[in-house]
């Protein structure tokens, strides 16, 4: 097992910290029903680290990503980036914030305005952030950035989105983000709509960027993809973290029943469902009827907030945290 734990790294390398964040969707006119989308979620993304946020639909993973990008309002406690609370940023400050934090979304075709050429995503950045840069220098900058994502400028510039493939479009979006001095990239399901044969190249690209010191929040519903690139895995269910830690621990030794059920359902090549199920059942034998969180904190008074490391999570082993086993997370066991 490769130990990728970054627990010992100094505070300064924390890139983005999410601390006890909640988000409630109001449904219906003038409030009405509340739908909690994210509940008390805390984690951090460090520089040079890929954190996978894994969850099914309705787990709140996309909402979290949008909160970090300030595309939806932040409720609950705080999200800090480089130690600064971002929840109150307005206009100018927000614009400056976007210099260092950028996002790429799931649907490459919907990320482009269909009636404009694809390079409009670059010119928008130029107009807003690099108005003073002259055209020739800007072209050089764009070319360099395209090369960083392994695209040749002749191939992709001056074309309309529908003339490019999904993989190319996603890479252009990453190149766009690289034009700014970003420290954190939120990648929301960026490969789920790509064809299998091109997915892996985009994933590899993320890994390369990480090697250059970028912090990446990789949001996905696919466990195998999350596992491939990440240094830390966060599993979300209905807006709560159920398990978190180094990928080889979370996937190699899943503790929470929900993580296990996910693992037994994900279709894998070379391993049929029955086999995976049997393997996990064997691993589970010792855990039946137990709840590690409540064994550690019988009164449910586990440490809260980032100061005490992880809220509502118990450290089961080094760099492996787990929430109460009550599968639904609604009530405790």
């Amino acid at each position, binding site marked *: 097992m490769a130990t990728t734990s970054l627990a010992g790294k100094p505070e300064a390398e924390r890139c983005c910290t999410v601390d006890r964040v909640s988000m409630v969707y109001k449904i219906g006119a003038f409030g009405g029903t509340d739908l909690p989308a994210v509940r008390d979620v805390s984690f951090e993304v460090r520089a040079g680290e890929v954190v996978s946020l894994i969850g099914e639909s309705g787990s709140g993973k996309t909402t979290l990503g*949008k909160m970090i990008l300030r*595309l939806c309002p932040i409720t609950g406690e705080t999200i800090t980036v480089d130690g600064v609370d971002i929840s109150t940023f307005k206009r100018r400050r927000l614009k400056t914030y976007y210099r260092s934090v950028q996002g790429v979304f799931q649907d490459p075709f919907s990320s482009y305005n269909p*009636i404009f050429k694809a390079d409009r*995503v670059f010119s928008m950045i130029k107009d*807003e952030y690099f108005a003073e840069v002259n055209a020739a220098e800007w072209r050089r900058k764009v070319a360099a950035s395209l090369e960083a994502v392994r695209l040749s400028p002749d191939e992709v510039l001056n074309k309309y989105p529908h003339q490019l493939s999904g993989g190319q479009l996603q890479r252009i979006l990453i190149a766009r983000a690289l034009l700014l001095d970003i420290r954190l990239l939120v990648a929301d399901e960026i490969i789920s709509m790509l064809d299998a044969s091109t997915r892996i190249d985009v994933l590899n690209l993320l890994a390369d960027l990480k090697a250059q010191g970028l912090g990446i929040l990789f949001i996905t519903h696919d466990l195998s993809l999350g596992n491939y690139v990440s240094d830390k895995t966060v599993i979300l269910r209905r807006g709560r973290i159920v398990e978190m830690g180094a990928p080889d621990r979370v996937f190699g030794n899943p503790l929470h029943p929900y993580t296990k059920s996910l693992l037994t359902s994900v279709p894998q090549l070379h391993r049929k469902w029955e086999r995976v199920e049997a393997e996990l059942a064997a691993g589970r034998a010792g855990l039946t009827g137990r709840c590690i969180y409540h064994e550690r904190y019988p009164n449910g008074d586990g440490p809260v907030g980032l100061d005490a490391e992880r809220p509502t999570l118990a450290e089961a082993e080094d760099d492996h945290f787990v929430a109460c086993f009550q599968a639904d997370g609604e009530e405790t066991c």
Partner: protein
Amino acid sequence: MTVPSVDQGVDTKVDRVPGARREALYFALRNKKLVGGLTVVLLFLVLAVVGPMLTAHGPREYVGPPMQPPSSEYWFGTTTFGQDVFAQFVYGLRATFRVGILGGGLTAIIGMFVGFTAGYRGGLVDETLNMITNVVLVLPVLAVLLIISAYLRVRSVEVQALIIGLFSWPWVARAIRAQTFSLRSRDFVDLARLSGVPTRRIIFGEIAPNMASYLFMVFILLFGGAVLFAATLDFIGLGPTEGISLGLMLNNSVKWSALQLGMSWWFIPPGIGITAIVGAFYIMNVGLDEVFNPKLREM
């Protein structure tokens, strides 16, 4: 003056790409409804522009013998008072186009403003605007126009267009709001926000261009609506206090018993004018819909 329902399936028109632009032109030129409608509209437009130059008389001048049927001198005959119906008709056409463009335009601007704001801002702003929209929506427009016009001392085409615009925007606002809502959730809008583009430029630079064809079609419907509203007001006797309009011609013809006197040349041309222009616009609109929306093309 039913406004054909346009609420349906409008989002399909959003996916326009430049390749599709050429495709749209291809279908546009081959669409009989579009070309036919456009031809009729242009014909009347030319008549409205050129017509007044063909006649020496003003629309309200008493120029000839009264109650003359159409002749080589008075092409459309004369009224009970000896006014030239042709002169009234061509000047009336001008008023029709003016009120349509001004009224329709103003309605579109208000509707767009409210729709874009509500759809893009969401939240409380949306709730409030939506409430206002719904209130104005159930207010019977003509009744409101009546009550306002009745108190106006001086009425002109411009004033008419203004009050029409002030009270007939709600359905436009609603339709645009729905469109904006669906476009706003598109990732390219989020991406523009992430690029630091200010709200106003996102709405007009990113969202509105995607609705261009739709907005154009809305304007066509509004043009027709404004023309019909104006004609109705004129007919009730709340028409322009100066000048002439097609609705006013109808009003006069009924008031002075053209029906009973069998002076069909007095009331037929203005009706044909309104019906043909508005109808041609509506048919053009169907044609446009077919051009922009492949599902509707004949298979």
